[in-house]
């Protein structure tokens, strides 16, 4: 169901008009109210009147996570503290947390955006929605909660954890929609099976999953195992929390709430704006936020935008599944490559295990003219015949070349050569970091 046809089905022309109107207003607003943007505009000699078209947004400076950190906690706040009714925050695992203050109007806007998001995902007021996102500082819990209430669904605010109770409530209360991280949905399913419960036979029909990167393969897996439609959503604490974009049941990209967020794709190296269809870093500007509006936030997420009309009838652009983070990106002889792409090429070769590392020779930033991929030789791929070992090497090299269009040197190494780490493995090494290669 389309909750807000006026905005969700606006012609691209009318939408751009609305965006420009809102952009001009928010630029004037931050220039007047936000100490951070007052300073940033002044340093660059920017006047609110410089923005006369959507294209003029490129005159504005980018805002990065670092700017939030340097201006912690309230340097970007544009209203007096007494107008703030709630404060959320990021986990701060990579440094100081990002503080996200909201006015009452922001909470109302966000609730409406989340209600629309859930409706887009296929949820309606008759649904029983079990919200297993964490409640608290994290935007996920309350963001979904308020959105679902605004939509009129019946909310069960279980929050994360206590998986057995989740399954019990899901059965007894007739949950039809689950909201959580995609990885937690798999844990729910496993626990259900251990308890002798087949979720496919329950009333559950939709899962709205976000807050972590996941793959199309994982979606298929979840949909098959749980018998539900698994919908991908996207959001960031810096921008608003969940609600920036969501898939519709056609599952062909996430519709960005463009009446509230202006999206750009840039070349992460040069900062240059890229046309629709090209892959680059997503940059977002909030058009309607009051407490803490953000201009041109560099998300570091890699995606592309598709403005073609969607079968669902919505006109808002669709962003593709996040394929990587700019932090992980490598540019090998001018070709953009992510470690995840290299991994998938390796794993497509039978018997090759995900124990690999990537060696580059970075002269500056993420550029390298050199790429070496170390692959551990498992018992499965090892042969006593040299010819077979050489052809394994050649096959890996050819796959890299044909799938990624990069010339990689493949180095077969003994098991345990590559350090094992718990959690996120370090995959990319600079040649200078290695003692002897």
């Amino acid at each position, binding site marked *: 169901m389309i909750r807000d046809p006026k905005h969700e089905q606006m012609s691209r022309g009318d939408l751009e008009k609305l965006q420009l109107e809102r952009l001009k207003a928010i630029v004037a607003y931050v220039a007047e109210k936000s100490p951070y943007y007052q300073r940033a505009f002044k340093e660059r000699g920017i006047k609110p009147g410089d923005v006369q078209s959507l294209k003029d947004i490129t005159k504005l400076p980018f805002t990065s996570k670092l700017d939030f950190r340097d201006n912690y906690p309230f340097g970007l706040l544009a209203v007096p503290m007494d107008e703030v009714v709630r404060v959320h925050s990021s986990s701060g695992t990579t440094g100081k947390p990002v503080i996200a203050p909201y006015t009452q109007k922001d909470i109302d806007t966000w609730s409406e955006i989340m209600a629309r998001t859930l409706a887009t995902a296929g949820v309606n007021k008759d649904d029983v929605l079990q919200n297993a996102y964490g409640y608290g500082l994290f935007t996920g819990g309350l963001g979904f909660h308020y959105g679902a209430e605004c939509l009129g669904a019946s909310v069960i605010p279980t929050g994360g954890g206590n998986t057995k109770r989740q399954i019990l409530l899901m059965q007894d209360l007739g949950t039809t929609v689950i909201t959580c991280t995609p990885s937690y949905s798999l844990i729910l399913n496993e626990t259900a099976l251990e308890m002798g419960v087949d979720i496919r036979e329950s009333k559950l029909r939709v899962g709205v999953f976000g807050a972590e990167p996941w793959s199309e393969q994982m979606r298929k897996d979840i949909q098959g195992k749980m018998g539900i439609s698994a919908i991908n959503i996207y959001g960031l604490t810096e921008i608003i929390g969940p609600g920036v974009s969501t898939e519709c049941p056609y599952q062909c990209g996430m519709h960005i709430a463009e009446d509230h967020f202006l999206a750009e794709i840039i070349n992460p190296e040069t900062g240059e704006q890229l046309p629709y269809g090209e892959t680059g870093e997503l940059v977002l500007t909030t058009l309607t936020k009051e407490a803490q509006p953000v201009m041109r936030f560099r998300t570091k997420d890699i995606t592309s935008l598709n403005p073609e009309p969607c079968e669902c009838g919505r006109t808002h652009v669709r962003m593709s599944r996040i394929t990587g983070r700019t932090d992980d990106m490598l540019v090998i002889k001018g070709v953009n490559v992510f470690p995840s792409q290299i991994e998938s090429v390796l794993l497509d070769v039978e018997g090759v295990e995900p124990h690999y590392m990537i060696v580059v020779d970075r002269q500056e930033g993420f550029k390298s003219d050199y790429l070496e991929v170390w692959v551990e*030789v*498992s*018992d499965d791929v*090892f*042969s*006593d*015949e*040299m*010819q077979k*070992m*050489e052809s394994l090497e050649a096959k890996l090299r050819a796959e890299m070349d044909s799938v990624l269009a990069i010339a990689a040197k493949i*180095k*077969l*190494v*003994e*098991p*345990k*050569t590559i350090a094992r780490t718990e959690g996120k493995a370090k995959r990319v090494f600079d040649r200078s970091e290695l003692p002897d290669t």
Partner: protein
Amino acid sequence: MRIKQVSVFVQNQPGRLLAILEVMEKNGINLRALSISESGEFGIVRMIFPDAERGMEALREAGFTARMDWIVSAEIPDTPGGLLNNVVKPLSEAGVNLKYFYAATDAISKKTIVVLKADDLDKAEQILEGI
């Protein structure tokens, strides 16, 4: 005769063969024959032990990538033309292609042990049984 051979994957670096032989010594495993073939940055060490299973277990336990394969071995006289007439010529005439081959000679018994892998291992075994 068909016997089992153990192969180990090694990086082409000083000390790797040493590491393999240390495993053998530590486990009290005797080595009957050994060959190394190398290709740039890595190599394959092939070995014959009295007890192939034990040899392979010891190597895997020490963290090596190892495998066991059936190969053919034969004992031939250590005389001029011994290898030519007893092994290479009959195999060649039968159209058997060799994948790899190595040999060790015992000076006292005047016998040479040859170890080989061929595209048609059954045929190779049959031919060498006749020596």
